[in-house]
């Protein structure tokens, strides 16, 4: 009996050790989401425009499209969908290739893409509060990207002074639907700039 007690004691000690050192469970879901539709679309665009620069534009447009889908998911308070779309966006960002831009633009674009990819990946694995925090910086990255790559689409930069000391995002519609608040304050914001 005594030995049993002692052994159990040791086990308990071991268990405490394990518990105290183990930090919170890392979210380890290596996301492997389907992106075949994206690829497909890009390759069709490729065929349409063989010229190198148009090809680049197509990739930038794909990033924008994913960004807007993600924005809509956040407007709709949809955490699960935003996770999926964050992953889709991360894939599009990774396939972006800046090699045809000038040296200055290239290094700027590479920095933007690296940072944006990280935020998109975080969005693919966090709760909605964190998703929105990352979306803020992601929005800045995408805005800076568009300033270099340009786009065919007419864009509206919108701004809500309430969220985190004032925060901007991009939209295809003039109508304001706030991705940082969703249903709790859908209308916060105004158009501060039109692009194109």
């Amino acid at each position, binding site marked *: *009996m005594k*030995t*049993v007690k002692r*052994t*159990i004691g*040791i*086990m308990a000690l*071991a268990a405490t*050790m*394990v*518990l*105290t*050192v*183990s*930090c*919170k469970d*890392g979210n380890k879901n290596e996301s492997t989401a389907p992106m075949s539709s994206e690829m497909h679309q890009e390759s069709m665009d490729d065929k349409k425009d063989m010229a190198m620069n148009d090809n680049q534009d197509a990739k930038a447009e794909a990033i924008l499209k994913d960004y807007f889908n993600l924005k809509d998911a956040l407007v709709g308070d949809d955490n699960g969908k935003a996770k999926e779309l964050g992953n889709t966006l991360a894939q599009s960002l990774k396939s972006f290739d800046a090699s045809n831009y000038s040296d200055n633009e290239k290094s700027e674009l590479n*920095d*933007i893409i*690296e*940072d944006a990819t*990280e*935020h998109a990946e975080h969005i693919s694995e966090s709760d909605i509060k964190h998703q929105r*925090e990352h979306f803020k*910086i992601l929005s800045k*990255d995408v805005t800076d990207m568009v300033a270099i790559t340009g786009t065919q689409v007419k864009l509206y930069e919108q701004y809500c002074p309430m969220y985190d000391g004032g925060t901007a995002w991009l939209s295809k519609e003039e109508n304001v639907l706030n991705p940082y608040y969703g249903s709790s304050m859908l209308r916060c914001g105004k158009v501060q700039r039109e692009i194109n």
Partner: protein
Amino acid sequence: MKFLKIIAWLALVALIVIQFFPITLNESDAVPQSDFMVENQVPATIKNQLQVSCYDCHSNNTDYPWYSKIQPAAWYLEDHIQAGKDELNFNEWDTYSSRRKNSKLRSIIKQIESGEMPMDSYTLIHRDAILSDEDKRMIIDYITALKDSLE
């Protein structure tokens, strides 16, 4: 009772056996030139707080306490060091683009504000890693100023 005894012995044996599994220790003597503290003139108190509270998981050199070299604790810590370093490595600060630095500084502020970092499970045993409200305010003020100077 006999049954329990067998289980207990088996568990003990397992515990001993796993001690012989090797772990890769996250240790390095030299502080590289690209370190956060080398690049920025960080006030001593803040420097010390960050090193005590964050560097174990966010640099190439972990200050291992005795129990963290014992299995299975070592495995858990190893995982967190890997994940932590992937997110943010203070030793490699200067290799980040200014855009990325900006993102990281913002993220550090958020993590400290919300109390998510340093992790609760870590401060449970590393009591000296706990940041008081005063510490938090000081660090956040400093990091915010640093971030503004980059923008």
